[in-house]
């Protein structure tokens, strides 16, 4: 079974700083997808960024980028120029190719301080 581990329960940085959230996963498969979801205090789950395992190039979405290290099974999220609105719970998630269910990590609570 696939597992996702986020080793940082909480992080806190100053506004405008760069922050990196860690995620590791365990799978013996080669075809899969990885996601970062953001859950602000409103509790809605918002897709931040996605990465296909077959792509070597790291995904980027504006201030959000990932460092995907397939051999190390690592998928970290970097937030540049952090903003107060980035304060949220961040979940790393894994989806096996051809499967239906997302497997989530435990989440990292990120606080951006003014």
């Amino acid at each position, binding site marked *: 079974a696939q597992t996702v581990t986020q080793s940082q329960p909480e992080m806190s940085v100053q506004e405008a700083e760069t922050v990196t959230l860690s995620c590791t996963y365990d799978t013996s498969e080669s075809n899969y997808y990885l996601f970062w979801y953001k859950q602000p205090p409103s509790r*809605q789950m918002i897709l931040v960024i996605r990465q296909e395992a077959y792509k070597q190039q790291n995904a980027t979405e504006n201030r959000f980028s990932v460092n995907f290290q397939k051999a190390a099974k690592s998928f970290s999220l970097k937030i540049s120029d952090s903003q107060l609105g980035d304060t949220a719970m961040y979940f790393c998630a894994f989806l096996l190719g051809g499967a239906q*269910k997302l497997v989530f990590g435990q989440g990292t609570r990120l606080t951006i301080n003014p």
Partner: protein
Amino acid sequence: EPEVTQTPSHQVTQMGQEVILRCVPISNHLYFYWYRQILGQKVEFLVSFYNNEISEKSEIFDDQFSVERPDGSNFTLKIRSTKLEDSAMYFCASSVGIPYGYTFGSGTRLTVV
């Protein structure tokens, strides 16, 4: 931007009562899901639904749970006889196709008393 809509946003029910959580997925999406998140814990998969039938379900999704797409737009989760441990945030999600990730609704907070 298209949204997944869930109603109600918060429901309080007595233990043993039946509840129906409602969702309107994005109109051109083909895959529908229910997840739940017990307070302070990780998000857990309950069930996926495609082509008018359950395609996968977790061990949590026992006989007390059922899903239905009663018409072309709604997708419902029914809990037949609620237990205290069913208290959680329930998220509906839909997807146009597996690799693109899901769009989640804003959730229904279910409180069983």
